[in-house]
């Protein structure tokens, strides 16, 4: 058969291309770590200890480092995730009871490829398939909260312990918050048209039956899409991070959100909710603030508040959820994030 005869050859070509890309990536990452000291100090003649030098160094080094990390993380995650789909997740969750369902939904929220712009059709689809509202909410909370880009960046910048803490805390919040919302009788506050909608026709599994080269192609395209979408946030984040790194006085942030201030986590979460950015844009800020002595629990809470609770997504969800449920959603998730912040400040101190 022509298809099976063609496969090994394309596989080898694909393997070579992937191997070459990985080698290039590693070389670029290695070079970025060594290049800027030489460029700024030796070639441009800037004094190594000057504030301007440190600010410029942070900006150049971090821009390229985070861009490289993003390319690697987004590609690998997209290819891996292409083996899951919202449709398969819903089939797994259909008929689950609360409790076990919340745990499964939170876990699936992490591994299912999902864009928050699909939050509404997914919500309707889940409910129409008999998935309880609280379980559906666990999925919708976990999906942006335990963001794969955030996890990948934390892993590369702060080590696996912090990344594991972040994943565990995010899952915990999604499970508990979804369960609480279910207990509150959330059905009352769902727009009635949701219950009248029936799933028509055949349910389409979007990524089943793709060939491996098509999945690689998807990964490459996703890298382009993500970079195009987030580069402004990334530059703003790195710019602010670089300014903090070079110019902010040591005690500026520790006074308001440092280990000595009992309201530090609360302040960080309240500042984080209205900030609209994404995991990649917020990471250089977290890095700079960490250098300035802010505790990790406060920073994780800040990051979660930025990525999990965003106004655009709340406006989308308003189409299916009435205001009381939306308010309860923000309150329950916000409380969870604050609790996680205090817990980890106490544990990691």
């Amino acid at each position, binding site marked *: 058969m022509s298809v099976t005869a063609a496969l090994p050859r394309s596989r080898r070509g694909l393997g070579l291309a992937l191997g070459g890309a990985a080698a290039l990536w590693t070389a670029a990452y290695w070079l970025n770590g060594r290049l800027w000291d030489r460029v700024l100090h030796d070639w441009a003649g800037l004094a190594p200890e000057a504030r301007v030098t440190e600010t410029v160094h942070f900006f150049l080094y971090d821009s390229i480092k985070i861009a490289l990390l993003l390319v690697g993380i987004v590609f690998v995650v997209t290819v891996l995730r292409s083996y899951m789909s*919202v449709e398969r997740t819903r089939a797994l969750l259909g008929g689950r009871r609360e409790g076990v369902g919340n745990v499964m939904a939170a876990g699936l929220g992490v591994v299912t490829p999902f*864009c928050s*712009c699909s939050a509404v059709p997914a919500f309707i689809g889940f409910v129409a398939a008999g998935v309880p509202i609280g379980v559906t909410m666990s999925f919708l909370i976990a999906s942006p909260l335990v963001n794969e880009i955030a996890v990948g960046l934390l892993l590369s910048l702060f080590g696996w312990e912090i990344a594991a803490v972040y994943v565990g805390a995010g899952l915990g919040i999604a499970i508990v918050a979804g369960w609480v919302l279910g207990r509150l009788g959330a059905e009352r506050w769902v727009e009635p048209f949701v219950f*009248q909608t029936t*799933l028509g026709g*055949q349910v389409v599994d979007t990524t089943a039956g793709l060939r491996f080269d098509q999945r690689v192609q998807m990964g490459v395209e996703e890298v382009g899409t993500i970079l195009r979408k987030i580069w402004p946030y990334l530059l703003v984040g790195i710019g602010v991070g670089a300014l903090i790194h070079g110019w902010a006085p040591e005690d500026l942030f520790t006074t308001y959100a440092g280990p000595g201030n009992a309201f530090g986590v609360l302040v960080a979460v309240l500042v984080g909710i209205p900030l609209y950015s994404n995991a990649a844009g917020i990471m250089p800020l977290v890095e700079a603030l960490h250098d300035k002595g802010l505790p990790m629990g406060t920073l994780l809470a800040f990051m979660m508040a930025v990525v999990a609770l965003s106004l655009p997504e709340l406006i*989308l969800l308003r189409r299916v959820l009435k205001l009381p449920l939306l308010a309860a959603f923000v309150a329950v998730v916000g409380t969870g994030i604050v609790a996680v912040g205090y817990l980890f400040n106490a544990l990691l101190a």
Partner: protein
Amino acid sequence: MIIKVLGPGCQNCKTLERVTREAVAELGVEATIEKVEDYPTIVGYGVMSTPALVVDEKVVLAGRVPRTAEVRELLASA
């Protein structure tokens, strides 16, 4: 041929519509392209990840933005 682009109006949906128009122009087929933004109707097709492409009432693609060449193949085989 009746083609429908399903999606609430996000960036991906606009991209899919543009790609579909390109594919139709390249194939030179007679087709009307409609946008469907109403959620109950979208879910009524069994679609949970937007954007999605429906050709003659059959869902041929959902949850991602394909390249023009892929849409051309989908339309040619529909």
